């Protein structure tokens, strides 16, 4: 008996019609699509985009060439050379990040004792030649200078949870 009823039920295509009702319901629903690039989704203040080097308000670069970030980087993306500057402090002479290697894990930021290297919220960038994938110290500092206000505000906001 149940075999016959189930046979008749499947002949009446009830499951299929049920499925079609679901899809037609979604057909008329408002769409989730964001019209990028005209519209953008909001970003978290912890967003880990392009990396940058920050400075102190007095203009001195924060990095003390401790090389913790170089050591922690799981992708070996950071290369640092350092020397003693005339005023006796230790500074980097070379600070390269290979963006093709970097996986944007943010470990470098976590490890930095002076909040020097940070992840910005920049995720829209491109390069036209392969060699451009390595960004150098001046570029990192310039990006940090450009976004300093945003970076400081983001870290301020996040401070209570650290």
């Amino acid at each position: 008996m149940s075999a016959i009823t189930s046979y008749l039920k499947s002949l009446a295509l009830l499951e299929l019609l049920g499925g079609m009702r679901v899809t037609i319901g979604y057909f008329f629903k408002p769409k989730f699509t964001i019209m990028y690039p005209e519209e953008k989704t909001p970003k978290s203040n912890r967003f880990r985009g392009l990396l940058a080097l920050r400075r102190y308000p007095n203009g001195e670069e924060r990095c003390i060439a401790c090389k913790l970030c170089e050591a922690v980087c799981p992708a070996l993306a950071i290369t640092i050379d350092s020397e003693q500057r005339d005023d006796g402090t230790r500074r980097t002479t070379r600070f390269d990040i290979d963006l093709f290697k970097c996986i944007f894990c943010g470990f470098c930021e976590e490890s930095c004792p002076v909040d020097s290297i940070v992840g910005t919220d920049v995720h829209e960038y491109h390069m036209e030649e392969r060699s451009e994938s390595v960004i150098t110290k001046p570029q990192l500092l310039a990006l940090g200078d450009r976004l300093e206000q945003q970076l400081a505000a983001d870290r301020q906001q996040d401070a209570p949870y650290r």
Partner: protein
Amino acid sequence: MMDHLMALGWILIKILAITIPLILAVAFLTLAERRVIGAMQVRIGPNRVGPWGLFQPFADVIKLLMKEVILPAKSNRFLFVLAPMLTLIPALVAWAVIPFEEGMVLAQIDAGLLYVLALTSVGVYGVIIAGWASNSKYAFLGAMRSAAQIVSYEIAMGFALVGVLVAAGSLNLTEIVLGQQGGIWNWYFIPLFPLFIIYFISGVAETNRAPFDVAEGESEIVAGFHVEYSGAAFALFFLGEYANMILISLLAALMFMGGWLSPLEAVPGIEGTFLAAPSIVWLLLKTMFFLFLFLWFRATFPRYRYDQIMRLGWKVFIPITIVWILVVALFVVKQWLWWAP
């Protein structure tokens, strides 16, 4: 001599008047498909090229035409090139007997239905030859699947059409439509309801559309029979598939939904107005409804397993059609209900 040339020219003009709108319809059907399926997946779909994405099909065509046609080194060149034409040409030629309104038909032949049935079956040779000539395992598997599937569903489809033939007493598509005059109650989809459903489902299977698209089965055999095709040759397969979809939808509208007849024909109060008058607009609306069903199916159903397809075709559809043909024949002979004199 001049007369012959004139007649020939006139026929050429008629052919162009059918094929050019058809190809444009195919172009916009691809766009409609992407937009409709997008909407059902709560996305928007292509909307960047031109207003509302209307120029997207042209961008796609230009892209495909500019691409290189790669002939696989160990393929059978002649058949490889022939196959896409073999799918497209029958899909276009079948349109010769399609009436768009009373008298609006390129070739008024009495065996129209048979002609259509024959030509839609020829299309499968394109698929089989493509699969064989590509000399690729995936293509060959796709071709074999498609051959078995189309042969099975051809029978069910043929029987469904026999039902129409019995009901209308004619193979001429115009007469089949005229046999359904007298309001929506007289349209064949009511007395032939099981045949109508089976015809349309077999039509979906015949055109290798989801959920019967095992011939392409991109998750199992990459792209099936056209895996080795690129550029313009690939575009021809595409064109053939979509032209066939439109053809199946139009035939369903003609044979079961009263063709160009108005659904409001017998509604009291509006006789004589344009709403009750038969017109090509009704035919196009009905066709669009069926085309929407094609897209709706694709957005809804997962692909059938291969043995399920065979079971459905042989063990479900064919018995039902045979029984229903007998029922219809009984009604016609006894002149019951719809066939009351």
